[in-house]
């Protein structure tokens, strides 16, 4: 069975979660419509690492007892170690735009496209020790030199309270790591079929490149077995279409 891109991305995210150089991930929250980050978190957990997963938007049940504000209260206190964010636009300084393009607030009569909105990003990005940015679409439309509107900034002025920022940006084509000191991405690995040149051609922002950029490793047989078996079981109720498409498994009627 060939390795699907979704499986490769989930295994890649799992390795970033377990990166020993990053602050520990004891409690991870995963937002709505994020089957690949959710699969990555399950992979970490099913490999036996002690981690608490709070999966928002489960179809049944809920990790919280105090309503949706509890996620933000936990994060405000520093009890959520890792969160995932994306963006309609992401720029080279890891600024996120979830609001819209064109004049504020996006999609106005003057033009541009309106995205849904910031959700909690303008808070979570500051208050979580680390954020993994994930956006499967890797194009110059998404990865821009400068976002039209900043819903959450990648770096802050000195003196502004901030626990962390982006650790990395994972796309359908590559992995970038982020340096908050330099406010700049560098190319960490390219997925099979991609080259430094193809990444440059598809990316609107400038980034650093080491002399020798490795390929993103394949998921191991053990990782694939976990993803296709027990992790698919866990995800079937919340993400039935994803499980049908990627793992060829249907929810029993």
């Amino acid at each position, binding site marked *: 069975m060939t390795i699907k891109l979704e499986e490769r991305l989930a295994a890649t995210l799992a390795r970033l979660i377990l990166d020993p150089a990053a602050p520990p991930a004891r409690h991870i929250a995963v937002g*709505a*419509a994020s089957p690949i980050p959710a699969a990555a978190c399950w992979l970490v957990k099913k490999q036996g690492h002690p981690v608490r997963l709070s999966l928002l*938007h489960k*179809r*049944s049940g*809920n990790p*919280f*007892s*105090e*309503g*949706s*504000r*509890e996620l*933000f*209260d936990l994060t*405000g206190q520093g009890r959520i170690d890792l969160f995932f964010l994306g963006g309609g636009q992401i720029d080279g300084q890891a600024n996120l735009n*979830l*609001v819209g393009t064109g004049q*504020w*607030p*996006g*999609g*106005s*009569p003057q033009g541009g496209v*309106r*995205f*849904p*909105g*910031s*959700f*909690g*990003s*303008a*808070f*979570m*990005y*500051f*208050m979580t020790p680390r954020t993994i940015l994930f956006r499967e679409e890797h194009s110059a439309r998404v990865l821009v030199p400068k976002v039209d*509107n*900043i*819903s*959450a*900034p990648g770096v*802050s*002025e000195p*003196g*502004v*309270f901030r626990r962390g920022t982006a650790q990395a940006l994972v796309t359908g084509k590559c992995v970038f790591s982020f340096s908050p000191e330099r406010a700049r991405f560098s190319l960490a690995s390219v997925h099979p079929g991609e080259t430094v040149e193809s990444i440059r051609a598809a990316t609107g922002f400038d980034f650093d490149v080491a002399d020798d950029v490795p390929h993103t490793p394949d998921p191991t047989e053990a990782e694939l077995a976990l993803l296709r078996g027990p992790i698919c079981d866990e995800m079937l109720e919340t993400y039935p279409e994803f499980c049908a498409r990627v793992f060829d498994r249907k929810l029993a009627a």
Partner: protein
Amino acid sequence: MTLRTPEHTPDSLAATVPDGALLALPPDNSLPSVALARALVRRGAKRLRLLGVPVSGFATDLLIGAGCVAEVQTSAVSLGEAGFAPRFSAALKAGTITVRDATCPAIHSMLQATEKGVPFMALRGLIGSDILRNRPDWKVVPNPMGDGVSDPIVLLPALSPDVALIHGVMADEAGNVWVGRRRECATLAHASQRVLATVERLVPGDMLEDERLAPGCISGTYIEAVAVAERGAWPVALLDEYAFDAAHVAEYARLAKTEAGFAEYLDRYVLNQQAQAAAE
């Protein structure tokens, strides 16, 4: 035990909501009264200012499409898996509504300030975002508990909606409404001038006397009126009572791409009382 039918219906409650009201709605996963939103469309409400607590979904898009809305304050508007909210996007493009963007914990905090009766709450984050830049009502001050000059922090004013619309699972004879663990609905109720609730069913007695039910209740102290509306959250989910009707919301998203399609949707599911009665 069957209780008497109360005097209220969703339409009689909607008749008490004035045009121009600041109207709060929980999002699709947290007990919005879609039955009351449909009744507001039928009554032809105008110039409503909607508040998403903390984000907005199906009911907001429906009210915007029907021309009931002047302004939306929210942290996001989306139909979930069915994608962007089509009537919201169209109204923004046409310039017929204004949107005041917030971020989720800011909306919770503004309601919590009202709940506590204090003029503001402080919130971390936000500094350097264009959301803050576009909110002249939010202020940045040096942390007054620090050295008084460093550590900038955002202050958010207390926010009190005129009316909150909530759909609970059940209401009792004392006027308490059970919403389970969706405690943001309780904060919203505590912070609102008026709460109008619909419920699936009425139950006898007083749930606050039951240790197992009391933690999931909004006390009747905060509830102005209750109407029974079976499947009143439909097409969104209601806890473990019924699931999100993804097929219906996808049909809505498809029809609501155009004004004509949206009008067809309203005719079929909102304005036609018989269809409405069958659905609920």
